[in-house]
């Protein structure tokens, strides 16, 4: 690769927050026409670096040059004007406005200050068409699923700066020079990811520099040219993707050798001798998941495999009463349970850790202790508080057992890292001694060390006789842990496969693809 001048160069970047140095002396450069991965565990400083670059955070030290000129970006608006566009993991669009408006808001075509609606809609439709997307631009954004909203966000970021909505515009005018994609794929299914990658490659040919963040290593190797690895707020190295294999990358990210996860491969699945715990009979919900039958035995780990949006979460939520089923019935321990609200499931011994830790799990303002005892207290009702001594003992025990850091029950849970927050949620439910623990993507967005710990915990819980319903995006994870694998496709439970030596990820993938198990 003939190294041209970098379009973006960040040198000696420092960013401090009270009590923590999030970035210290980090260098980062980005060349035109490349897809550059920014790698690192949670807390490595990826998000901080991006937020510094886009002006969300102010800089505490270091310089940024764009096209050879030193720039000082102090707001997202300035970043956009300078040609740096960002698409975040969460869709940052306005659901109440139409797709077309979301693409163009802030730079609508106007004549004498009057918005030209027809022109706006036509341009939006053209833009969407050109990218091969099938979206009605006049419909409100909220009428589309999250994945489509994500694509709209990318479409929007492309149109930035050139006013006519004519795409990235081949470098003429202040079009997008740098496109930052911050975990855009975490809510996309495979087809959508491919669509996105096609788009990324096309933009790369047009000379746009793309900064790509993703937790999926395969995606990095599929689409990226170069990567920068961060660890604990410092630069570890910059490498061409073809020069560094996956093992090497993980070692760089972790700062230690592999092996933690390998132990689990040797885990022997014990025999399915447990008695039946839960029976779901024709359970279903319109728009959620088609009616399904399922049986969960005591001590059994059931893994759910399927693409995002295949109904994994929906199935779990039905079993917990988080959504109300329209059809079917559930019995737990032989007794029918109405499942009209989470309380019914909780009373019957079901626990559920949502995939959305922040919005559906934690109460960020409350302390670690209060968050841990919440489920138990809710079950006891407000009139019967847990005695102080018993409460403190329980909390201390679980903080130690799960190695929650900081080990301070008074710490506000919102200040903990993702992995520790996940452990707080686990502690919350373990304290209630559930019969069935539902874990919806418990390892998403947390670092590899915490991932391994949580997976080991699942194994030991199962050995102690607790049933676990385990959902994970990575098939290997499901395969490694489960006695039985439930495969979902298009919001149907298409197969339930007993795990064994002959079951491989490719067979599961075949089942997902074909919708039937041979």
């Amino acid at each position, binding site marked *: 690769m003939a190294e041209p001048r970098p379009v973006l160069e960040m040198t000696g970047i420092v960013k401090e*927050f*009270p*009590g*923590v140095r*999030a970035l210290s002396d980090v260098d980062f450069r980005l060349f035109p026409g490349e897809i550059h991965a920014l790698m690192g565990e*949670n*807390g490595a*400083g990826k*998000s*901080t670096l991006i*937020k510094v670059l886009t002006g*969300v*955070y102010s800089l505490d030290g270091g310089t940024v040059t764009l096209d050879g000129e030193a720039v000082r970006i102090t707001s997202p608006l300035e970043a956009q004007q300078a040609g740096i566009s960002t698409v975040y993991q969460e869709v940052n669009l306005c659901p109440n406005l139409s797709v077309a408006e979301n693409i163009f808001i802030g730079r609508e075509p106007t004549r004498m200050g009057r918005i030209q609606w027809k022109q706006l809609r036509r341009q939006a439709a053209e833009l969407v068409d050109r990218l091969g997307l099938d979206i009605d631009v006049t419909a409100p954004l909220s009428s589309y699923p999250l994945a489509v909203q994500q694509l709209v966000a990318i479409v929007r970021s492309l149109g930035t700066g050139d006013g006519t909505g004519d795409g990235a515009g081949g470098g003429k005018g202040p079009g997008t020079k740098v496109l930052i994609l911050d975990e855009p794929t975490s809510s996309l299914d495979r087809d959508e990811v491919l669509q996105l990658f096609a788009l990324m490659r096309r933009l790369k040919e047009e000379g746009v520099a793309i900064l790509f963040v993703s937790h999926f290593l395969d995606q990095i190797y599929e689409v990226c040219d170069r990567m920068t690895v961060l660890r604990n*707020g410092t630069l570890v190295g910059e490498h061409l993707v073809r020069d560094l294999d996956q093992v090497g990358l993980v070692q760089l990210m972790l700062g230690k050798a592999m092996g933690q996860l390998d132990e689990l491969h040797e885990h022997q699945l014990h025999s399915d001798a447990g008695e039946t715990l839960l029976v779901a009979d024709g359970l279903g919900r319109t728009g959620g998941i088609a009616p399904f039958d399922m049986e969960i035995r005591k001590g059994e780990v059931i893994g759910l495999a399927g693409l995002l949006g295949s109904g994994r979460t929906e199935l779990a939520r039905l079993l*917990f009463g*988080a959504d109300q089923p329209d059809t079917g019935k559930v019995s737990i321990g032989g007794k029918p349970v109405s499942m009209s*609200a*989470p*309380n019914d499931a*909780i009373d019957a011994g079901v626990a*559920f850790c*949502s995939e959305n830790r*922040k*919005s*559906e*799990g*934690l*109460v*960020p*303002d*409350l302390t670690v202790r*209060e968050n841990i*005892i*919440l*489920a138990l*207290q*809710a*079950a*006891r*009702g*407000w*009139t*019967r*508080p*847990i005695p102080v001594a018993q409460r403190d003992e329980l909390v201390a025990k679980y903080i130690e057992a799960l190695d929650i850091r900081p080990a301070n029950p008074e710490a*506000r849970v*919102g*200040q*903990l*890292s*993702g992995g520790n927050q996940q452990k707080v949620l686990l502690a*919350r439910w373990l304290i209630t001694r559930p019969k069935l623990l539902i874990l919806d993507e418990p390892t998403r967005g947390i670092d590899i060390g915490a991932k391994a710990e949580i997976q080991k915990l699942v194994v030991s819980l199962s050995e102690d006789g607790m049933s676990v319903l385990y959902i994970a995006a990575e098939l290997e994870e499901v395969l490694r842990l489960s006695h039985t694998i439930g495969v979902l496709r298009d919001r149907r439970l298409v197969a339930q496969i007993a795990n064994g030596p002959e079951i491989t990820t490719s067979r599961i993938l075949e089942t997902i693809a074909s919708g039937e198990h041979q």
Partner: protein
Amino acid sequence: MTTSSTTSSRWRALTHHHLFWPVAVLVLLLLVNVPFTPDFFSIKMADGHLYGSLVSIVLFGSPLILVAVGMTLVIATGGIDLSVGAVVAITGALACSYISDRSDQGALSGVLLAMGLGLLAAVVCGLWNGFLVARMGIQPIIATLIIMVAGRGVAQLITDGQIITINSEPYKLIGGGYWLTLPFSIFVVAVVVAVTVVLTRRTALGLLVEAVGGNAEASRLVGIRSRRIKIMVYAFCALCAGIAGLMISSNTSAADGNNAGLWIELDAILAVVIGGISLLGGRFSVGGTVVGALVIQTLTTTIYTIGVPTQTNLVFKAAVVIVVCLLQSPKFRAKVFGARFGAGSGAKVSGKTAAAPADPAAASEATPKMEVS
């Protein structure tokens, strides 16, 4: 005074206590009175009753404290109750019109029945609010707007647009009587505050309320019956407003459907905010609210004693609202005191977002940076 603590770490711990700013404002306001009324803090005994500015501040502030205490719980669940003023009017109107229809207005049974009737109406209003908020899922500000608008009409309907005056000794006791040398209403307030504290902190109610206010969906998924809690809290708030309504009408021996409890909802919300509680819900402190209500009442009293024309009361109140809110705003403190507090102000920003009314944007903006630490 509080300045006796000398070491800077203790000083910092003190200034970071959630009651520091409310109490500081209260003490400051009280001290302002001294140059104008040298015997401001003295309490005299006359006719077996205690008199003094401090006593009258608590006495006149009683209805507001009651309403504000109820409001605290509602706000802690992430709600707001705009209807309390109307509930005050309805309760007073109902109780007084019932008593005025009696041949013997002084009969204890009749008075008790009247009070029961008034409080029942209040609780019904509260249940209705709770029903709309918890069952129908309507935003609290809108749900309670209904009774705020219609309630005064109902109160006027009950009194037929008149001001009903009554002459009932037992009824007079609640708002204007004395017991054990102190105004009876102080005891009522003390009991309500004590009951509230016991109810929230000796049971798990406080924790569950804070959980519901802190994250409603998480609370649902953790099995908290948040509907019940919300309905209970709105009913409790209305009950407090009802007691305040009885007190106000008892104090004047009259029910005025139009003016009783006018703007008390705003004063109550203000008291809660001065008490350092976020309008977004979550953490709450009954003590903070009581101090907040006392600040508002002291302000009114101060304006009287320092001889400023009383019509400027509202302007002063506006000034206090602005000052208190600015002091609580992390952004304001960072901008104004940023240099003086140095690095400490940053920590305060993240630590105090719970206690200060910050908008959701600030809260969510703060979250990602938390993950770094």
